[in-house]
C-alpha cells in the first residue's frame, strides 16, 4: 500500500467539480467513488509522491510504503500553511514526530 484514505475523515471535497486529490495527483490516480469518498485507482501505479497527502484539507490521506519495501507500518501526513508545511510521522513503535518546514516566502517576508 502506498496511500491509505480514511473514509471516516474524507468529505469528498463536497461542492467542488473535482476533488482536490483527484485534481492534483500527477498520475491521475485519485477519483471520487459513487459514495463521494475518494479512492485510488491502482496502488501499484502510485509514485508515493505525497502530493495528494499534502493537498487534502482534512488530512484524510496518509502516505505509507508498499510492504515489500518496508514492513514498519509507519505513516506520514502533512498539513499546509500558507508559508509552511507541517509533517507528522508515526513510527513503528507508535511515536510521533513533527516537522515544521518553511515552504514559501510570502510577499513582504
Amino acid at each position: 500500500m502506498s496511500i491509505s484514505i480514511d473514509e471516516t475523515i474524507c468529505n469528498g471535497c463536497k461542492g467542488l467539480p473535482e476533488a482536490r486529490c483527484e485534481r492534483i495527483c500527477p498520475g491521475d490516480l485519485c477519483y471520487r467513488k459513487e459514495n463521494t469518498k475518494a479512492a485510488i485507482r491502482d496502488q501499484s501505479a502510485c509514485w508515493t509522491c505525497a502530493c495528494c497527502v499534502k493537498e487534502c484539507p482534512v488530512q484524510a490521506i496518509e502516505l505509507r510504503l508498499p510492504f515489500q519495501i518496508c514492513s514498519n507500518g509507519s505513516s506520514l501526513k502533512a498539513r499546509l500553511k500558507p508559508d509552511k508545511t507541517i509533517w507528522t510521522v508515526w513510527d513503528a513503535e507508535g511515536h510521533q514526530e513533527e516537522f515544521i518546514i518553511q515552504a514559501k516566502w510570502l510577499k513582504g517576508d
Partner: protein
Amino acid sequence: MGILPIDTDILIIGGGAAGCFAAVEIYKKSPGCRVVVMEKAHIERSGCLAMGLNAINAYLHAGETPESYVAYVERQFEGIIRKDLVSSIVQGLNDAVKDVEKMGLPIEKNEDGTYKMRGKRSIRIFGERLKPILAEAVQKTPARVLNRVVATNFIYDGTRVGGAFGFGIRDGSFYVIRAKAVIVATGGASGIYKPHNTGEARHLLWYCPWNAGTGYAMGIRTGAEMTSFENRFIALRVKDVNAPTGTIAVGARSKQINARGEDYLECYYKHWGGNRCLTHHRLLATVEEKKIGRGPCYLDTTTLNETEERRLKEDFLNMNPQIILLWATKEMNPRKKPVEICGTEPFLVGGHCQAGYWVDKDRRTTIPGLYAAGEVAGGAPKKYVSGSWVEARIAATTALEDIKGMSLINTGEDTIQREKTRVLHPFTRKAGISPSEARERLQKIMDEYAGGISMNYALHEERLLEARRLLKSLKDRMKDLVAVNNYSLVEALECIDRIDVARVLVEHLIYRKETRWACYQTRLDYPEKDNRRWLVFVNSVYHPKTDEILMVERPLCS
C-alpha cells in the same frame, strides 16, 4: 469525441520547470503574446519536481568562472558535451535562480544575503512547493493552461511544426492546437527499463513515472535529429526509496562504505580518483563491490548527531518523503544504521545526462518552428533544474524573435482525422494487448538485451541486435493495444511512445563501439574508451515512411 481547435502564438508542451519558466518569460518580454501551456497532469504538481526539491545543483558560486564550470562538465562527461550549450546555460544560472527566489522559493543564505554554499556548485533550498510556486507565477500571466491534456504528435506540414495534437483526459476531446512556434519541454523518459522495484512498488521510481518520453517520441516521429541517447542515466540512490545520496553525501558529508565498513572508493578505486572520482565511476565502483561480494554498500550516516539527523530529515521531506517512512523505526534510524545505496534502472534524461533533441545555441531543433528546453534538449548535461530554466529563457526568446511576421499553418482535415484515428485506435478494439502487458514486455526486453539492472548495465552487440529485433516486432503488435477508459488510453499511448524511444536508444547503443561512460554506456565487446575514433556525437533521424533510423555523426564543437 469532439474536435477542439485552438489557435495561439506559442504553444508550450509540458508545464514542468522548463515549461512554466518559459511561459513567464514570454509574457515578461512580450505581454501581448498568446501562449498555451499543454500539461498532461496539473501544473501545480506535475513532472519530476512534483515531490519537491531540496537543492539546486547548478549554481555559479563566487570563485568559479563560466569556463571552469564548463570544464568541470566536460570532464564529468569524458570529453563529450556541447560546450556552446553548457556555456550559455552557465551564464544564465544565477539570474534564473534569483527570479525563482522572487517568486517565493526559500533558499538558505549567509548573513550577508548571499546563498550559502552547499557544495561546489550547489545551494540548499526549501523546495517542497517549488512546483506550486512556479505554477502560481504562470497563473499570474494570461497564459492559457490546459491541464490534463496529453500531447500526442506535432502538427507538421512537411516543412515546419505548426502546433500539436492532444487528448483531453477529462473531457475526452481531441485538441488541435495551432501555433506559430512550439516549445517542447516535456521531460525525459522513465519506464523504458524494468524497474528495480516490482509489483505494488513498481512505480517507486527515481524519475516521474509519467514522464514517458512523449516529447522525444513526438520529435522522433517527426524526423527531428536526436543526440546522445546512448548516454543513459543511472542514478546512485538510497535503495528502494530512491532518495538522493547527495543530500547525505554533500549535505551531511557522509562517506561511502562497503559491507566491511571500508571506504571502498579510497581503498580500491584510487585509480579513478577515490572519493573525488566522476559520478559514473562512483556508480561503477558500487556495482563492482556488489559483484565482488563486498556489498551491500552504504552511506555512513552513523557519525551524524541529533541536530544533523533532524536537518537531513527535513531536507528529505522537501524532496523524497518516502525515506522518512523507511527510517521511522528504531532499527532503521540513520544514526544507528548506515543507509544502503544502489543503482536504479537506466533512464533517458537531458538534465543529468544529455539525451535529447539536437539544438542550436538558440534552442532551435532541426525542425523549423520547434524549440526544445529542459530535459528533452540534448547535449547539455548537468543542467538540472536551474539550467532548464535558463534553456527555457533562451528558447522563449528565440521563439518570440522567430514568430515575427509568421502566420499559422493550414492543417488539412485528413491530417487531423489520421491522428485522431491513431490516438483513439485502442478504444476500437474489444480484445487484444493491455497497456500493462505492453509495458512489461518492453521493460523485460530492455532489461535483458539492452543493459538493464539484471545485466549490471553492460551491453554487447549480439544482445543489442536481439533487442532491435524484439522491439520491432513489439512495435508491430501495438495495433492490438486495448484501452477501456481515458486513463488506460493514456497508458496505451505511453507504451507506443516508449517503444519509439527505446528503438532509437538501442540504435545509439549499437552504434557507439567503445565504452565512453561506464555503466551509462558500457560495451563488453569494446571495453576501452577510444578518443581517436569516438570523440563525436552520435545522432539519429527516424524516417517514418521507411520505419528506418538513420545514424549520423557530428563533430564536437567549441
